[in-house]
């Protein structure tokens, strides 16, 4: 057997040549390349955007929604804190007096005055409060889009966006609590607690 001929067809080897000639009918005849679906070409193009191309749009969307949420939530929380502060303190102080006079107080009494209607009359709400409903409407309109059929990539981006929003919201809550202190409405006075224990 001629090794050189077997490797690069240089020289000759009758035995191998006979086999080659016999097997020629089975050789690839050269057919037309398969016709390709256009959809796949588009997908290949899209998949070449890479990591940043894939994450940049959802990240921008998440930041934008967080800013809108901050713009709506921050002024609203400040207004309610200003409004409820003095009122709640007076209510709570009145309540403690009542519990002192009774031997066995009710376990937990809900403060009678909760509606902020008179408070609004006491403290003039700044004009920006009137902007809130319009902002809220804008946020709601964003949420009203799920009937659109999403691709897998878009669904994934949507879920990531929702996750980012949830995280942002919790962080904002922490910041708000840190800045404003604990909410007076959710606190029970120490005296009342002691009375309840007795």
């Amino acid at each position: 057997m001629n090794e050189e001929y077997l490797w690069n067809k240089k020289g000759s080897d009758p035995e191998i040549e006979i086999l080659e000639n016999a097997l020629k009918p089975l050789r690839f005849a050269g057919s037309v390349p398969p016709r390709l679906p256009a959809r796949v070409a588009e997908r290949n193009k899209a998949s070449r955007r890479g990591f940043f191309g894939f994450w940049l749009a959802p990240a921008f969307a998440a930041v934008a929604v967080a800013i809108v949420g901050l713009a709506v939530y921050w002024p609203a929380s400040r207004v309610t804190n200003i409004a409820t502060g003095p009122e709640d303190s007076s209510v709570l102080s009145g309540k403690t007096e009542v519990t002192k006079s009774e031997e066995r107080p009710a376990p937990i009494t809900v403060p009678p005055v909760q509606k902020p209607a008179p408070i609004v009359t006491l403290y003039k709400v700044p004009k920006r409060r009137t902007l809130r409903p319009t902002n809220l409407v804008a946020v709601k309109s964003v949420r009203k889009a799920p009937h659109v059929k999403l691709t897998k990539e878009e669904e994934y981006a949507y879920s990531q966006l929702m996750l980012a929003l949830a995280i942002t919201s919790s962080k904002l809550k922490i910041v708000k609590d840190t800045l404003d202190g604990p909410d007076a409405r959710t606190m029970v006075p120490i005296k009342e607690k002691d009375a309840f224990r007795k």
Partner: protein
Amino acid sequence: MPDSELTSQVFAFPAREFPAAAAATVSIQAELVDRISAGDEEAFGELYRMYAPMAHGIVLARVPRNDVDDIVQEVFISAYENLATLKNKDAVGSWLAMIARNRAAEYFRRARPMDEIPDEIGQDDAERTEANEILAAIRTLPEAYKETIVLRLVEGMTGQEIAEQTGLTPDSVRVNLHRGMRLLRDKLGIEVKR
């Protein structure tokens, strides 16, 4: 004698020959993949013409001949669909070879239990009958040998071309060819004696 000259004599490394032809092929492969990714169908046609014989040989070594052309087409469609998963563009040949092997294996997994129609049916040509007999003998060879032997004897590729296209090392191809041919000759000799 200057130091530099002495050093060059002491460390007389043989000049490393850079395989220019192989490098050119590599760059062509990468360029083709880029063009196909950009949606160039003509580039896909070039890739098909370049590698279809190799895919044909790999599939022919395993699958009945009547289904080989369909599977070759499937190989290239599958490659096109999954082109984004190709990490090394220069290794598109070995990637296609792998797809061809997987498709051939898949053919037997999905094949329904039925009697295979012999390749000879409908062919009066004596040459074809002889070809089918030799092919049947090649298919009985071990996996590594039969693929290389088909690419060499049926598709007419040289050892170097087989190595470049399938991603095997030239030494492996050389060994596969040598041992495969020896086994094939024995098998054909045995068949003749019987």
